[in-house]
């Protein structure tokens, strides 16, 4: 019976500061239908990532939102109906972690407390890491799930999506 069941679909968003590596994170795994130009025009690009969780296929419909910077704030409206989100911060730029914290606050204000996972990206550049252990401890104490990822080596990316998918079930 389980073979004939259609996959469970979940909308998730990919959010974070501009240049944190969100798009690079998914590019390694997904053969997207849409060009990345959509990010600068419509402000979002849709991809799909299918994975098996507890023998159930889950289709994550990923809304890759344009990165936030001081000129273009995150369009929270695109999170409407999302089941959760993957937050991406750059381990070599501490301000991206601050942006991530700000985003979590804003999403909670409009969409409620959605499940999320923080992907601390670019961990392959260990020597340039700006984010301190204390910062991470503080966030983990606040209930954040933090995974170290590298779009370059592929480290932790699958785990981050799987972890988020489990939280959505």
């Amino acid at each position, binding site marked *: 019976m389980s073979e004939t*069941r*259609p996959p469970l*679909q979940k909308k998730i968003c990919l959010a974070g500061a501009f240049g944190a590596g969100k798009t690079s994170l998914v590019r390694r795994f997904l053969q997207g239908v*849409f060009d990345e130009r959509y990010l600068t025009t*419509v402000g979002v690009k849709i991809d*799909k990532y299918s994975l098996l969780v507890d023998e159930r296929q889950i289709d994550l419909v990923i809304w890759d939102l344009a990165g936030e910077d001081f000129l273009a704030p995150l369009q929270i409206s695109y999170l409407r109906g999302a089941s959760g989100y993957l937050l991406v911060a750059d381990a070599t730029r501490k301000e991206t972690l601050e942006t991530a914290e700000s985003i979590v606050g804003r999403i909670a204000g409009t969409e409620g407390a959605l499940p999320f996972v923080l992907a601390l990206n670019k961990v392959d550049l260990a020597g340039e890491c700006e984010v301190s252990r204390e910062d991470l401890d503080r966030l983990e104490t606040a209930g954040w799930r933090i995974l170290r990822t590298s779009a370059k080596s592929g480290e932790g990316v699958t785990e981050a999506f799987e972890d988020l998918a489990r939280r959505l079930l």
Partner: protein
Amino acid sequence: MARLRLLLSVPDPAEWSSVRGYVANPEQRARDLSEALPEAVRLGHSGGKLRAALSPAIEESLRLSVQRHPEVITTALFPIIGAMIRRYIADALTDLQDSIAQTVESSFSIRSLSWRFQAWRQGRPFAAVLLEKSLCFRVEQVFLIDRRTGLLLLHRRAPEVDVKDPTVISGMLTAIQDFVQDSFGGRESALDAVRLGHHTLWINTGPKAVLTCVILGVPPVPLRQTTEQTVEDIHRDFAQQLEEFDGETGPFGAAGGHLDRCLLGGAGGKAGRGPRKLLAALALAALVLAAWYGYRTYQQYRFDRLLGMLRAQPGLASISAHREGGKWVVRGMRDPMAADGSALAKSAGFDDVRFEWQPYYSLDTPFEIRRAGEERIRLIERSVLRYDQFAFRAPSGEMETLAADWKTVLAAFGPASRLRLLGAAAESEGNGLDERLSRQRVAAAETAFREQGIAAETLVVVPGPLPADRTIRFRVELPKQ
């Protein structure tokens, strides 16, 4: 006595306490009232007082509800409001269909007769079949999308249609819808159509779900009714599933029939051939038009040449030339001496030109000369040289005038013209003398003409006895033209 009655009628304290408790308990009173209210409404219905009393309260409640929570009323009315509007539109469309049908009724062709037969067999109005057959379109894909999440609930496509990942397309359609709403409108308005080349996207937005059709070609108006009806039916039949949707698309498999109803239009890329067919027809029409125009231009060129030749003809003045009932008609003025132009038209290849000439005298030199020549011929032929008895010399004054006139005639009609000098004698001169005198007189006249510079070959001397009146008369013979 009255006091005693009062003391005796005091209720039992326990009962009294129960009544007091009931009065003090609004919850209990409300519960009892809710049980009695339906009956009270039923009883009060016939009187109309209750209705009158409730109306203001209900109206006010409805107004407040619409003001504060419009989406609740919208969602509640959605399944019926479309039907109401459609009914009005359907009435108008029926009138339109009737008028189209009336127009087409008169045109009989094998194809229209076969459509008529099909309409009769299927029990449908002829105009509906006509619309369906006349328009080229094909619904290639239908997406049923959850409005809130943008997740794909169900997707259907026509055979042989190449489809990219519909899940992702569904998300992107929703994102674009959000983008347009955020940029240009509000949440209450929605993008309902997108056109791209030969494709049209029709987006029917319901309160919970969005039905998007990808259509190739020109979609007919009745298709809009079908898609609207479909989205309403889905909201009615899957209200609970839509309300509780959390990513599980299985329950929406049963909506396949609804979506298939929208997969209308010609099969096998008929619509794709539509524009090509149209282009081919247009190209053929353009070719025929160009050929016709070319032929007309060539004919006009030939006719203009003929008109040029006619204008060059002395004594003809064409004023207008146009086509009338497929024939050329030339109107103008013509000197009676001029040719009427028919021969010229025939030589130019036009057998069917009608000439309508008004007479006039042309001042062209050849006509002036001819006209002067004719005048002189009349004068010459009226002239009579009269001789006295036995005289034979021509009177010199008259001879000079006659010679001058004959020169004019020769100039007008050419040197082949002949002047006959008809001599005569008188009876009284008798006994052969007459004839001799006659000969002498015409010979003298001929000599006199030659002395005036007239060529001898243009003169014909005809001596004779008659009429016996001692005269010479003149006859002119013109060369045959």
